[in-house]
């Protein structure tokens, strides 16, 4: 069959009807795969963009294509193959959305579903827009991810996402708190304000009112329409951070101060996206009082926590606590099980006692995936993967059957948090321990399906000679000092348990 030349160029107007052959291509292009011959193409055949700018333009393109192609909007996104999803953009499957619709139909609360749906639509659209116009913090984050991908991903040794952020900016915004001076967020600025506009008063989700102080996305005057060209925001109360008196509110609940984007308090259990925000500006913050089933949400005591928040209970997908505002993916989670944020198994930036450090920063708690270093094994970025070679821990020596003979690999990745680190966390383990996706943790928690990890490869730890005096001090200290957090892993001895 003759191969179609237009198809090879990426755009054949006949598509399936073409008389020539359209073989499917091998490995896809990396970020920014295009459907018409657009200028910015990632260069490397391996699929990773060869320059950081290409990555950014690639991502911007992707967002545009996503918006215009009627693709399912509630999806996570990862800019490069094999890299983690961009934090803050999480999956919601059509079945889950449909289940909510049917549930509210049965319960006779159709508005709850509508609010939930519209809010989601608006939320994802905003996030895509913010990825499209990357803020400086977003660029920094991407830069790090990009370099880590070039160096083979996963970050062996030095923390990809920095140890202590010298600045105390949180990635996804959220200033608040002492040091988050700028508080410019990844998904928009938040100077103690909601990233997504809508300040005080009635909380229209997407800032139907332009607010005076510069929330980046503030001042969008038109209600964010439904992606599929449907409805606009319901007038009363925003889903995000609105008050929903009704129990069974799908999304969110009250926000004392509105402007909480994913905020709101959810009194009722089973709120999908519940959260509370005592303060303004919590983007993905909020507290969730109810124990079960809060997908999003955590608490934010104060402003600016983007993906922060505390979660009183387990099962919160996002959120951790931010005592001080501005923890982006930060915060502590009292309970375990929080995928994002949170202390135990905190994915992004563990605790921020002081300021909104997103990536990095200290985590007194071990197990923070991003940033926080060394102490925690299982810190995904920064922090050592215990096993090099195999990303997911565990080597599989070649064997005839697919499953080889290896008990070890299973071990290295005890089931549990994909992103996460953890393991050493006392008490705060998500059940079953964490199957750290990126390099991972030490002892699996009880109940994990996997077995104990075998000895970690030699280069997961530093040699004593590699550590500088300051690093040694830091490791020896009870807590890391901001600004002096080591960028290299500790020695094996230091980690001995």
């Amino acid at each position, binding site marked *: 069959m003759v191969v179609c030349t237009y198809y090879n160029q990426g755009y054949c107007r006949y*598509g399936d009807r073409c008389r020539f052959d359209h073989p499917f291509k091998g490995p896809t292009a990396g970020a920014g795969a295009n459907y018409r011959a657009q200028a910015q193409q990632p260069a490397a055949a391996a699929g990773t963009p060869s320059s950081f700018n290409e990555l950014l333009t690639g991502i911007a393109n992707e967002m545009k294509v996503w918006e*215009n192609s009627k693709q*399912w909007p509630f999806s*996570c996104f990862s800019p490069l*193959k094999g890299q983690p999803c961009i934090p803050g953009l999480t999956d919601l499957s059509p079945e889950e959305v449909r289940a909510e619709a049917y*549930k509210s139909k049965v319960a006779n609360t159709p508005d709850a579903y509508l609010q939930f749906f519209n809010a989601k639509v608006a939320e994802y659209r905003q996030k895509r827009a913010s990825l499209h116009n990357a803020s400086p913090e977003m660029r920094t984050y991407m830069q790090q991810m990009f370099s880590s991908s070039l160096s083979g991903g996963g970050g062996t040794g030095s923390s990809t996402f920095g140890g202590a952020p010298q600045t105390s900016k949180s990635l996804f915004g959220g200033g608040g708190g002492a040091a988050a001076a700028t508080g410019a967020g990844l998904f928009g600025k938040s100077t103690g304000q909601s990233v997504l506009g809508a300040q005080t008063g009635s909380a229209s989700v997407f800032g139907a009112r332009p607010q005076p102080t510069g929330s980046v996305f503030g001042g969008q005057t038109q209600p964010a329409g439904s992606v599929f060209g449907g409805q606009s925001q319901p007038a009363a109360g925003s889903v995000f951070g609105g008050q929903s008196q009704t129990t069974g509110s799908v999304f969110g609940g009250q926000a004392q101060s509105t402007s909480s984007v994913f905020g709101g308090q959810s009194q009722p259990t089973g709120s999908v996206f519940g959260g509370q925000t005592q303060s303004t500006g919590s983007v993905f913050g909020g507290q969730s009082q109810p124990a079960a089933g809060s997908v999003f949400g955590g608490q934010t005591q104060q402003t600016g926590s983007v993906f922060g928040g505390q979660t009183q209970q387990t099962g919160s997908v996002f959120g951790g606590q931010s005592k001080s505002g501005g923890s982006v993916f930060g915060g502590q989670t009292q309970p375990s099980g929080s995928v994002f944020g949170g202390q135990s198994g905190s994915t992004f930036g563990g605790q921020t006692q002081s300021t909104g450090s997103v990536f990095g920063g200290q985590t007194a708690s071990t197990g923070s995936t991003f940033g926080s270093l060394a102490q925690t094994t299982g810190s995904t970025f920064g922090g050592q993967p215990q096993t090099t070679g195999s990303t997911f821990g565990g080597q599989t020596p070649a064997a005839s059957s697919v499953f080889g003979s290896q008990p070890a690999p299973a071990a290295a990745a005890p089931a549990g948090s994909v992103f996460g680190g953890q393991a050493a966390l006392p008490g705060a383990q998500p059940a*079953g321990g964490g199957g750290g996706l990126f390099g991972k943790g030490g002892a699996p928690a009880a109940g*994990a399906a996997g077995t104990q990890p075998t000895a970690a490869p030699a280069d997961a730890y530093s040699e004593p000679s590699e550590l500088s005096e300051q690093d040694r001090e830091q490791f020896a200290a009870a807590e890391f000092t901001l600004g002096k957090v080591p960028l290299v892993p500790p020695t094996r001895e230091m980690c001995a348990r």
Partner: protein
Amino acid sequence: MTMFGTGGLGASSSVFGQTAAASTANPMKDIEVVSPPDDSVSCLEFSPPAVPQTFLVAGSWDNNVRCWEVDQNSGKTQPKAQQTMGGPVLDVAWADDGTKVFMSGCDNTVRCWDLASNQTVQVAQHDAPVKTVHWVKAPNYTCIMTGSWDKTLKFWDTRSPNPMMSIALPERAYCADVDYPMAVVSTANRGIIVYQLEGQPQQFKTQESSLRYQHRCISIFRDKMNRPTGYAIGSVEGRVAIQYVNPANPKDNFTFKCHRSNGTNQGYQDIFSVNDIRFHPVHGTLATVGSDGRFSFWDKDARTKLKTSEAMEQSITKCAFNHTGQIFAYAVSYDWSKGHEFYTPTKKNYIFLHPCFEELKPRPKT
């Protein structure tokens, strides 16, 4: 509407020896299953080889699971029985002896339907809707594996109310497949975890996804020696990834685009979700069905497309092959890919049966 001819086997056009009138609802002129469900079909499975007849079971968002008997020669279908769950049904699975059907759904439970007595009994419970249920038959144990949005994967000996094993997942379970001794689960946020079922189920490894958007469906394939060796994943971005658990060569893993339109919308293609992927039990080639209402057949080894169908009136939500590989069943119903606004409850849902043995023959490598 259908004419029952006597084409018989060997006729080039139809294994079933009959033709159906083409219409926009049935552009492929396939056989329509009678008495289809009243709401979208969420799961579709043929009976296993252990039973001589061919049964087709479908679960639906109308809370029911229906069972039809399918005549292999004529393709005629006859409704046999139906059961109801406490909420929309999300997945069904046959026991390997063909006597029981397991159904899981939004009422957080899994029920076992004994076909002989037409009775159901609850056998499993989760804290959130149970998205996947699969039968596991090992030499030293049998059980069902259930994956749920409560982020756990549980294994149940159906005689006991408590799970034999419960594994925490990093995220909500979205799709899974079992082909002893391998099981693979894909979760929200692009997680992929491979499990090893020999002895007892244990996690084998987690793998990175070559896809960049939400995973939607997953299906295990076998190597030339008929051992499970990898899986295909479909995403919401009109793309399928073929990944090996232990690739001999990194280039063995690849992705391809599918279920996309021509780029008529200002040059942007419409991108549709891949809703289901199945491998042909004999040829090892694969079928994908998407939100665009089309199904496509592919040869992953030759890396070519074998066929794409005409577009149905609605998306195709699920598909299934019978165990001989003669029949390809696909369900045309709304998959919620455009939200509630495009949901038309009055629109009829279809399940079609398509003779597929010839069409799915692998293409010799060029």
